[in-house]
Structures are given as C-alpha cells and as structure tokens.
C-alpha cells in the first residue's frame, strides 16, 4: 500500500497507533539550571572535554538494555566548550543552581493551555541518556501538569503530562568510536508535551502535532525557528512494538515517517511468521561464526581489503535456517539485511557502508563464488542457512557478529522496540538505539522539591490566551477566509487584531493589516516598530469612521513606519482631499485617455487602476466604479 492510496480504514486494519511527544524551547533569557545565556553560536570552540559513559546498575542490579548497548559502542565523547555559552554546570563539574523560575512559570502557563492540572510540588527527576548527548548521562526533567487534553475531530486527545526539561547537546560528528557534541544548546529549557497513543492514522498524527505546536506558539512563550521544536513520534501496529522515531524537526515529515514505520512493522511481522513456519524458535535458534580473513586474502576486489591492511579482520556468521530472509523487503527499497547493517553500524561502529556482505550483495563487494562457498563450508552451512560476512577492527567485528546474531534472534519475535531516527530520504528511519526500559528515571537528589503555590497558578490562569480551536471558531464567525484564519491563529498580534476588528467593524480589513501588510512591511524593511498597538487601534477607529479607505491603508502604514507619524498625520499627508467637482473632472479626464483595450472588463480594470493611482485612496473604490460606469453610459 502506498501512502497516498491508503485510507484510515487500512490503518485501523493493521492496528496503527501513534503518540506524539513535542519538545519546544522556552523563550527564557537563561538556561534551566544555571545562569548561562540562551542562544546558539557558530564560533569555534574554546576548549574540549573528553568523557565516557558508564552504565549504572538498575534497581534489580541489572543493566538497562540501552545502557549496555551504549557500553558496547565504546564511544569517546568529545564536548566542544564555548566559554560564553556553558559553565561548569553543563560540563557536569558543578551541581545545579536553583531552577529557572521564568521557565517554571512558562511551564505552568503552557500546561494550563493544555487544560492540565498543575502539580502542587514539582520534583526533578533524572532520565538516563548514555549516548553522550548530555554530559551528566541524564536529563533533568520535571512534570508540571497532568491530565490535560486538546479537542480534535469531536474527541479529546489526552495529554497525560506536560514536562519542563533541559535540552541536550548538538551532535556535530559521529564517526567510528568518536562522537563530537557542541554544548551551546545544552540545558536550554524545553517544554515536553506528551499525547496518549490515540492517533489512528498518519494524517491524524500530522494534524494533532500541528495543533500541539500551534497551541505552544499561541502562548508567545516558546522559541521558534530551526531546531527550536522537535518531535518524537511513537508508532506501533497490532502485534508490533512501540518504536520511537526521535527528533523529527519538521511536522510535515510525520505522515510519511509513521506510514513507513507501520509498513516496516508489518513486514517484520510477516518475517516473523515465515521464521515460525520454518520451525525456528528461541530454543533451536542457532548460528556459528568463524574468522574468514585468510579466505579472502587473495580476492583483489574484496571491499574489506583496506580494513585488513590496517590490521583488521574478516569474519563470517551463518544463521541456521535463515536463507532468503535477508532479502525480504522491510521498506520499499530496503531489505532485512539493511536492518542488520543498521545495528552493526551503530553498535559495532562499523560505519563505512556497506558494512556487511550477504547473498544478494557479496558479488558487488568482491567476494567470488569459490571463496563464498569455502567460507560457508568451513561453517558447515547447509542450503537453508544464511551467511553474513563483516570486516573491520577485530573488536568491532566481534561486536558486529554478536549484534547480527542478536538481531536475527529478535526477528523470531517480530518487531524489536527501538529508538530510530529519520533517514536522509525523510520517509524511512534508521536504527539509533534500543528503546530504554522503564527504569531509567530516578529522583534528582541535587535539587529540592519546588512548591507551586495555588495562588500563583490561579493568577497565571487569568492570563491564559484563548486557544487555537476557540480562535478558529471566533474568526469563522467573523466570516474570515481560511487562509487568513490559518495565519492569525498563532499570530502574536492576534489580540490586537481582535480589537481592531471590533473597533473598525471590518474584520477582514483588520486581518489584512495584521497578516498581509505586516508581512509586506517586514519583508521590505519598513521598520514596523513604529506601528504600535495604540496607533493600530487609532487607525482602526479612523477606518471605521470612514476617514480613509481600504485602498490607502498600505500607504498610510508605510508613512507611519518610515516617518514615525501618528495615523492622522499619515492620512493628512497620504490621502488628498478631493471634492466632488475635482473627482468628476479627474474621472472625466481618465475616460478620455486613448487606449487599445476593446474588452470591456480589461478596459474597466485599466480605468479603475488609473483612477485609484490618481486619487490615492481618497475616494472608496466602490464609488469610483459607480461614477465611472455612469460617466461611460
């Protein structure tokens, strides 16, 4: 099924479910747990720090699977330090300072927007991340609101939590065992808004994410622009697993990503069924491995030769009974072997692709028939078995073999729970890490609980803006067209628009000023700073009183911007006083202008344009049109 030919019923048929976590930076001056300024910079780093992450034992004395995976990667984590953007707190060399109260306040206001209950006392938790993106190895996070909702298609989408947390580092480079992070983004306050997995199609996921983002933006309290908002999208289908696609930076990517993730899970379930039919289970799953460096030493075309020259090895693994499964399609142009290659790339850090050879690609990778068969024979491979060959530094190859065996075993059960990230084609996703277990949250002992006073909540409740869905109803009732409504819903001047619409009695004119003319003035650097709210309201009053007409609005706005005029001054300068006699003489002159236009419509348009130009909005267009047609008759 292609994305564009499926309908909601198809998605219901496979049990598609999706939940969204939207993260957006808060518009604060300082970071969440220290007093560093917020803002990204491109300056070269001032210093570097090297760290490693070590998994900590969980409650039961076990390691979290994600933690263990990150340990296998043996990453050398380098942080680029910027003296003007980070302090010893971000470096994990100082304990946190008391939480940024401006961020807490924004958190409360956002949680109120989402109809949440506000917690009486916020507790900081630590959420473990071992990929190095946060130098402490955990993210400080706290729940501010619970049990919220937004209206969507005559139902309520539940928002179980609204959280405030610190942002992570920007990844600059990640090659082999080295990863480089830039620290300026680290610890910028974020809001995290979470929905239940109640979205039943990619389209719903898209629309609800849009609504969440719109609601955030309405507050005027969040940062906008590239990277300021990122989504995690959780997808599962019936019989599949929760898979998280992390860090989606454009909402428009969500339909394709969720659609293809559903397809991938379906394909993996089909693969599971086939494995089952072949009689393979956990109890009889078997594989064997061998060193194959010598076997390929005389194959000049072999792609792994360079790795071997650098002291690396070649190894082979045979998976019993898996023949033909490697080439099963998972995405339209990707096969199961690509899933395995993704694991090997991330966990064994063999990131020069292709990193594995299998039946379908081994010829192109320079593994001739004889060598391939020799290797298979040395592993006692039978016809029904699959073979994979990998190459690189010895330790990495050993890790790779382990991961290949693990990934194939997981196929017996269908869909492994994973965190994935968006592939370059913006439709598929690549393996990033195993989905963390539930036990990676624990209390932060460095920060005392934060009492949120009931009076504080109530006073903030009073300034909660009207919500996007309510705004839409209001504007629809005013008779505004959809394109203006779409622009105005999150427009920071929405409130001034409402007052202008009321005062002028002409919502469409007010909308045009706020949406179209403001954009025009901005784009052409007219310095809209002189358009104060007060001036806009006076302008609306003058317009309502018929002092000037729609046609001269833009010229008046320009004059206010450029000359810092008050509206009346601008009108006096822009709009000429035209008496009835003057009007008649101007129009009589215009209709005598020679021209070739025979088409009456074109001719009328020409005459109108000429009249408008000369009269500069002193007379309403309607009156001009009437007079022109009277004069011509």
């Amino acid at each position, binding site marked *: 099924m292609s994305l564009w030919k499926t309908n909601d019923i198809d998605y219901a048929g496979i049990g598609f479910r999706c939940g969204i976590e939207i993260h957006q930076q808060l518009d604060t001056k300082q970071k969440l747990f220290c007093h560093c300024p917020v803002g990204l910079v491109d300056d070269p*780093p*001032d*210093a*570097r*720090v*090297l*760290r*490693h*992450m*070590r*998994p*900590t*034992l*969980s*409650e*039961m*004395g076990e390691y979290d699977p994600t*933690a263990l995976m990150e340990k296998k990667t043996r990453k050398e984590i380098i942080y680029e*330090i910027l*003296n003007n953007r980070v302090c*010893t707190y971000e*470096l*994990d*060399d*100082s304990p946190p300072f008391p939480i940024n109260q401006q961020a807490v306040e924004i958190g409360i206001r956002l949680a109120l927007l989402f109809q949440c*209950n*506000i*917690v*009486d*006392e*916020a*507790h900081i*938790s630590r*959420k*473990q991340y*071992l990929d190095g993106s946060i*130098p*402490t*190895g*955990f993210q400080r*996070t*706290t*729940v501010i609101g*619970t*049990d919220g909702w937004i209206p969507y298609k005559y139902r309520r989408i539940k928002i*179980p*939590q609204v*959280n405030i947390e610190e942002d992570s580092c920007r990844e600059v480079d990640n090659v082999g065992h080295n990863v480089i992070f830039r620290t300026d983004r680290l610890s910028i306050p974020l809001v995290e808004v979470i929905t239940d997995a109640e979205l039943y199609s990619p389209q719903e996921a898209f629309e609800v994410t849009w609504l969440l983002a719109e609601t955030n933006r309405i507050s005027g309290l969040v940062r906008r622009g590239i990277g300021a908002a990122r989504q995690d999208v959780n997808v599962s289908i019936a019989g599949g697993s929760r898979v998280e696609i992390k860090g989606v930076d454009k909402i428009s990517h969500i339909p394709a990503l969720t659609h293809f993730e559903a397809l991938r899970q379906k394909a993996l379930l089909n693969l599971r069924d086939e494995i089952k039919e072949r009689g393979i289970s956990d109890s009889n799953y078997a594989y064997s491995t061998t060193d194959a460096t010598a076997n390929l030493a005389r194959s000049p075309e072999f792609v792994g030769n360079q790795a071997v020259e650098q002291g690396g090895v070649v190894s082979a693994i045979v998976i019993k009974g898996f023949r033909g499964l490697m080439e099963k399609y998972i995405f339209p142009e990707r096969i199961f072997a690509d899933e395995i290659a993704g694991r090997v790339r991330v966990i064994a850090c063999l990131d020069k692709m292709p990193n594995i050879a299998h039946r379908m690609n081994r010829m192109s990778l320079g593994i001739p028939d004889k060598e391939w068969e020799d290797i298979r024979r040395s592993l006692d491979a039978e016809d029904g078995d699959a073979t994979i060959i990998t190459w690189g530094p010895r330790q990495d190859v050993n890790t790779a073999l382990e991961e290949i065996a693990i990934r194939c075993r997981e196929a017996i059960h269908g869909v492994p729970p994973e965190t994935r990230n968006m592939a370059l084609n913006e439709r598929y996703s690549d393996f990033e890490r195993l989905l963390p277990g*539930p*036990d*990676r*949250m*624990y*209390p*932060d*002992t460095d920060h*005392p*609980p934060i*009492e949120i006073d*009931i009076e504080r909540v109530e006073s903030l409740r009073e300034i909660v803006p009207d919500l996007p869905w309510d705004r839409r109803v209001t504007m629809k009732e005013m008779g505004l067209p959809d394109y203006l409504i779409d622009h105005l819903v999150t427009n920071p001047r929405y409130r001034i628009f409402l007052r202008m619409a009321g005062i002028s009695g002409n919502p469409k004119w007010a909308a045009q000023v706020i949406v179209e003319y403001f954009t025009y003035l901005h784009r052409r650097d007219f310095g809209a700073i002189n358009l104060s709210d007060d001036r806009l309201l006076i302008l609306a009053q003058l317009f309502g009183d018929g002092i000037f007409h729609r046609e001269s609005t833009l010229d008046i706005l320009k004059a206010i911007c450029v000359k810092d005029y008050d509206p009346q001054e601008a009108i006096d300068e822009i709009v000429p006083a035209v008496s009835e006699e003057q009007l008649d003489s101007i129009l009589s002159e215009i209709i005598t202008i020679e021209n070739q236009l025979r088409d009456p419509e074109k001719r009328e348009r020409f005459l109108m344009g000429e009249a408008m130009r000369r009269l500069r909005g002193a007379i309403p267009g309607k009156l001009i049109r009437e007079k022109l047609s009277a004069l011509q008759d």
Partner: protein
Amino acid sequence: MTTGEKSTTGYRGVSLELLTKFNIGVWDRIKVESESGDYEGVLLPRNSMADSLHIVIKLDSGYNIGVKAARIKSIEYLGRQEGHYGIREQEFPYDESKPNIFLFGTGGTIASRLDYSTGAVIPAFSPGELFGAVPELADICNLKTKKLFGIFSEDMGPEQYITLAENIYKEINNGADGIIIGHGTDTMHHTASILTFMIQNPPVPIVLAGSQRSSDRPSSDAARNLINAAIAATGPIAEVMVCMFGPTSDQYGLLHRGTRVRKMHSSYRSTFRTLGDIPLATVDVQKGVNPLRSDYRPRSTPNEEFKIIPTFSDKVMILYYYPNMQENLIRSIVEAGYEGIVIAGTGLGHINRPLYNVIRWAIGKGVHIYMTVQTLWGFVQMFVYDNGRYLMDCGIVPLANMLPETAYMKLAWALGQTRDREEVKKLMLTPINGEITERERPDSYLVLQGGLPEVKDFLLDYML
C-alpha cells in the same frame, strides 16, 4: 521499617496525619483524589529535610510529584509495590599471578547502585559487588575488602585515623601487595597526611581514592578512579597517595603525595592538586603508573623501619588569620584548652601587631604555635620584615612550605606523642614525606589563567 504496620518514612505533621487517617504507608499503590487533580501511583518515602505538607507519588511514567496534603480529599489503597534491593554478587576471580590488594571502605561510595524510587545510593562494597560494578578490577588484581566505617568524610576524626592506620599496618603485614582506601573527597587530603605520619616507611603503595560525581551517575569518575587506584596500588610507588582525576576529561589520574595534596574546587573532577611541587605520577589503564619524578619511595618488602605511630591530640586547631583579628579570640582558644595552634598567616606569614602580646602570653602558657601561609603556595619567610622577627622572638615557629592542613595534622600527631617544646619542634621540622621541601621547583606553581591566547591554544590541544 516494621512488618505488619504501615511505614511512613520521612513523613511528619499534616502529611503523616493524612496517611494515618487513610491507613496508607510507603510503597502502597494509591489513587489520590485532590483539589489539584487525581493521581495514581506509588507512595514514596519523603526526604526528611523536605516540608511536612506534601506526599510524594511516583507516577507510572516514572516521574515523581508532590501532592499537598491539605488539598487531598481521599486516598484509595490499590495494592503494594515495594522496591527490592539487592546487588547481585559475582565472585571476584582469584588469579595467583596477580597482586593481592586490600580495599578499606570508610563511607564514600566508590561503587554503588541506585534505589530508583528514592534516589538513594546503595553502596556496592563487597568484592563480589565491586566486581559486578567494575569488572575491570579483576584484570588488575585480586581483591579483598573490609568496611571500616560508614561515615561522610567530614565526620572522619582521630578514632577513624587510628583504626585505619592499624588495619592498614595489619594487612600489609599479612601480605597485602597494596592498599586502597575508599574515601569521601572533602577531607581526603587530611586523611592522606595523617596516614603519612602514622604509617612510617610503608613497603607498599597506600592509595586513597573517591569520586567527585557519585557512582550512580553514568558520567561518574568513580570507576575510573577506582581502576586507577588499583593500578597504583599494584605499582612501584610505596607512599601514601591520593589518586584522582588529572584533568576533568576522562584521560588519566594523578598520584599526589599525601602531604602536598589539597582539594581545590568544591565540585570539579580535577579538584585534587599537588601544591608547591609536582605530582608523583600519572596513572591510566594503557600506560599504568608513569612516574613524573624519581625521588619516590620504592616498593620493598616489609622491614623493621615499617611501623605505625598512631597518636593524635584533639587540642590542636587552625587559625585562619584575617585583618583586625582580636586578641580575645586567641585568649579564648587558649582558655578552652587548646595546646597547639597552626596559624595560616598572610603573605610570608604575618598577623597584625595587636596580637603580639597575646601570642607571647599563649606561648608562655605552653601553647605550641606554628606559622604557615594562607597563600598555600610559597614559603613562610619571617626574617624579611621586623614584624616576623618579632613573632619568632615570641616563640612562633615558621613551617617553611608545609600546607596549613598538613601542619594541623602533623601538630596533632606530634602533640599526641610529646609536649616537650623542642621535641615537638624537631618532629614538626623534620619532613617525613615531602611536607617540607628544600626547594620549590619553578613549575610547582601553575595556576593558568583563562582568556590568555596561549592558554586558549593549550586548552584546545590538551582538553580541560
């Protein structure tokens, strides 16, 4: 915690009354109806330092929240969900060819496991637990452990110093090839200097290690410090040493001589620095112990010189001089029974003139007064100005470049043995292991200043 009865750890006042009213205890799964909202989760213990007005619930999402007791209308009991604590023990492997290291615990958590519900850190300490947490140790040595105390490092005192010295002495005589002491970092340098004085001529390394970031954090320095300490304990330098991070980056550890080391930052990983000298060695897994100097005490077999002198007088204090210090302060110190005062003076070792009379009076009373410098780097030099000569005439003894904390420990140790003025002076001025150095290397005072172009280049090349 008692069985049969509900536990209410950490709750008091209003919140305790509420829990009692609804017969709810910690680890109960509950549903709370409150004016602030309804919540379902597990009741957690309350930090006893927090207020008495809220109860703490762990939501199913893993987040914790506090609910104000006064706003709670009802609590429904849904079941019980107790956390289970147990560190899986794995037997620490024994390898005949590897050195035998003895690890003493004093209370710091060099390895630990987290209680995810409360955030409490549960120390891992037995060899089996340590092997589970830091398996790399087994590649370095055979390990035996003994937990001597379970206290914070600021609570260490004479009793602990003496017990520690005696136990170390015993285990070295029992054949230990090296000693590690797990120690909180705050007073690690105090313990390092007193052990240097109490345990004389050790034949094997005695290494103190700890962590600046607790071991429950993925970014902790604990495991690396412990591994480095194990390498140092099997290494060639038979001195009392502190083994902690060199730079804040995960690169190498430094071995610091116990009498010259000081904690210099309240929270940085690279907080321990050797002052007025260079460190003994670097240590890391790849290169092992790499000495930076050759005048260290080499490993040997136990001999007659190896002895302990576990003495300590608790009538000694450090007086950190400040301008306008009043003479009645010193008078009250003496009247409180103090027998030894280490002054951390300004500059080359100065205090203000109005104190001269009381100093003369105190020394007349039999108090032993020694001068160090609060600049930490550099020597006391009391001949340069008249004031200094006058103070020496009063009987204050300059202590060269001995660090104030080291001088405090040494004076306490000396006064534990004798009160004879000359004998004490002889003990104080005869260095046992580098607490006074004959000369100061030019590169022993390096406090780089950020912002300078050359320092910028250095930081980019070598990392923080």
